[in-house]
Each structure stands twice: as structure tokens, then as C-alpha cells.
């Protein structure tokens, strides 16, 4: 009897230990987290508008008034320059690293004239850019991000159906280009 009790206690301790290990290591082993789903949507360095259909739908939370576009990028080679402009009542941007931790976020309230103009660069690239700021970055917001991969999420709101065209225009014309520092 005692032996059975002992083995149950050992089992419970093992369950607790296993629970801890799973919780701590799950982010590293997950193959359907947000970053991997964003990478699966399309190629890097361009904004892909998500629809409520199969692949986009799993990333979204079903808000019928928000339109979203995502762009995966890799800072190992070059910084990435995010640009968008248009007549929309609201837009917001969030930049995440490959573990889906937020690096930076902003909305049109903190933008220059409602235009999105953000340069995301690794610290080494940013130091070089700051030493000699190119003319096209004169009004850009410079965001430093540890080197590696990440993704940007651009959202805009469609409060009533008549705003749909403006939102589609805004998102489809948004750019997420690798920025050639030399050029």
C-alpha cells in the first residue's frame, strides 16, 4: 500500500517537473507561433494583406473592423524601411522579434503628418546610418532592433463599409523594403 502511495507521489512530482519543462521550452519548440505563421503567408520584405480566410484568419482575432497586413523581415543583411500613406481614420504599426516580443509600436497619432515612415535596423547598421543620414531618411523614425528576424504588423480601421476602399488602398500600397545603406 505504501509502495503504491510512494509511486503516486513520485508520479505527481514527475508531472510537476514535466509541466515546468513544457512551459519553459514550448516557445522554442512551437512550430505554429505567430512568427512562423507570418513567414508562411508570403515572401519576406513585402506587406501581405491578411484576409479572414484560412491562413490569415488563424492569425487574426476576428475583429470585423480592422484590416491587417504583415511583413516578415531579416535584419542580418540590410535594415528594412516601412512606408505607407493614405487617407484612413486610424492606423497602427507594431514590430515584433521572432519570439513575438514587441520591439516597437506606434499609431498615426505619433506619426509625421499621418504618414508611416520607419526604419528598423540592427545596432551596428543604425550607428553607420546615424553618422551619415541619407536624405530619404530625414523624416524617418529610426528603430533599433537586435539583429535577426522579425515581423511588422500594420493595421487600419474600417468603421463603416465606405472606408473599405481607402483601407485596402493604404495596405496594398504599404512598403516594407530592404534599405540599401550604400545606395
Amino acid at each position, binding site marked *: 500500500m505504501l509502495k503504491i502511495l510512494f509511486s503516486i507521489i513520485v508520479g*505527481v512530482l514527475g508531472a510537476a517537473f514535466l509541466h515546468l519543462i513544457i512551459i519553459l521550452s514550448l516557445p522554442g519548440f512551437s512550430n505554429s507561433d505567430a512568427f512562423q505563421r507570418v513567414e508562411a503567408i508570403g515572401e519576406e520584405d513585402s506587406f501581405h494583406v491578411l484576409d*479572414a480566410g484560412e491562413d490569415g484568419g488563424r492569425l487574426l482575432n476576428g475583429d470585423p473592423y480592422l484590416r491587417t497586413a504583415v511583413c516578415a523581415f531579416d535584419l542580418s543583411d540590410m535594415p528594412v524601411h516601412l512606408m505607407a500613406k493614405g487617407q484612413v481614420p486610424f492606423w497602427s504599426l507594431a514590430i515584433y522579434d521572432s519570439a513575438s516580443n*514587441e520591439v516597437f509600436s506606434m499609431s498615426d497619432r505619433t506619426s509625421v503628418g499621418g504618414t508611416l515612415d520607419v526604419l528598423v535596423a540592427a545596432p551596428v547598421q543604425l550607428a553607420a546610418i546615424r553618422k551619415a543620414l541619407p536624405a530619404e531618411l530625414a523624416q524617418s523614425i529610426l528603430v533599433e532592433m537586435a539583429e535577426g528576424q522579425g515581423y511588422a504588423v500594420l493595421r487600419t480601421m474600417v468603421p463603416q463599409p465606405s472606408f473599405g476602399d481607402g483601407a485596402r488602398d493604404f495596405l496594398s500600397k504599404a512598403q516594407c523594403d530592404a534599405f540599401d545603406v550604400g545606395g
Partner: protein
Amino acid sequence: MFRVPLLVALSLVIAFGGGILFTRYALDASAGFGAIRLGAWEAFPALHTADADPYAKSHRARAGRLLFGTAEGLEFTASDDDARTRLSAACRYRISGQTPPARLWTLFPVAPDGKPLAAQEGRPTAINSWVVLRDSDSSFSITVSSDAAAGNWLALPPSGDFKLVLTLLDTPAAGSSGLIDLSMPKVEKIGCGHA
């Protein structure tokens, strides 16, 4: 002769089976320890950041959804009404009051597992701050029910449980400094059935 292997097997079954089942339950039940609760509404302001606790990071990796950044907005979810009774489409509810300061907000119901509800053609299944009708003091009152109601009405399917998702966009509430003294709308049940 089989005593020892049997006991070892018992330990292993409890360890692996119990550990995995308990972990799945814990990850599905909540998104970590950093929740804030205001009345019936619950939010996780740090879920998308590097400061999230390990449970939150696991939940985030498993759910694989795009979360709102701190400067984007904050998403509140209500699965019970103010009296802590589960929200059910067989009953009618009134959401009234004001939201914390936010440039825009959206409100829509979802299924208990977070997935969208079945589509309902021609019925208003979502509402936002631009179209909501307000009283003279800027407060609003939204009826959430499967039967049509005058004024602001959010349609539900005929039966089943649901959750309400209220997303505040461009709000100081998302940063931790704005959390004190936030007042969220009340969620009260006004009746069940077709009475």
C-alpha cells in the same frame, strides 16, 4: 514479480499523462498571470512583451495570434457578466456606461474558444465607437441578444455560450500607468428566454 515494473509504470503514467494534460489545461484556461480585471472585463497588457511570464509566453506561442502592441491598443474579453454568470446566447444583456479614454473601440462576440461565431447574414454582429448611439453624457447602452432590440443592438446566434471582445484602440490604458481608475462598461443580464 511484476510489482516493481507495475509501480514504475504507475509513476510514469501519472507523470507523463498528468503533466501533459495539466499543462494543456493550464495553457487553454488562461494567458498567464499578468491579467487585469475591471468588472467583467479581463485584459493582458503585457502578453505581447518580453516581460510576460513563462505561462504567457507559452500561451502566446501556442495560440499563434497577432497581438496588439502597447501603442496600438488593448483587447478586453468578458466571458461572464458582472454577476459572474457565464454569458449565454439564451439570455439578453445590456452593456452600458463609458469606456476608458480611447480614440476608437470595437465590440463583437466570439465563441468560448475565441474563434468567430457562425456568420449571421443581415444582423449586426459587431459595433464600434463611430456608429454607437450615445446619450447626452456620452454614455451608451448596447443590447446584446438574439432577438432584435431598438437602439444599439448586437446580434447573437440562437443558443450557445459566447465571450465579448472589446478592443480599445490608441488608448493610454494599454501602458501600465493608465490602469488605475479605469471604468469599463457594465455588463448586466436583463432577462432570459423570450420573456
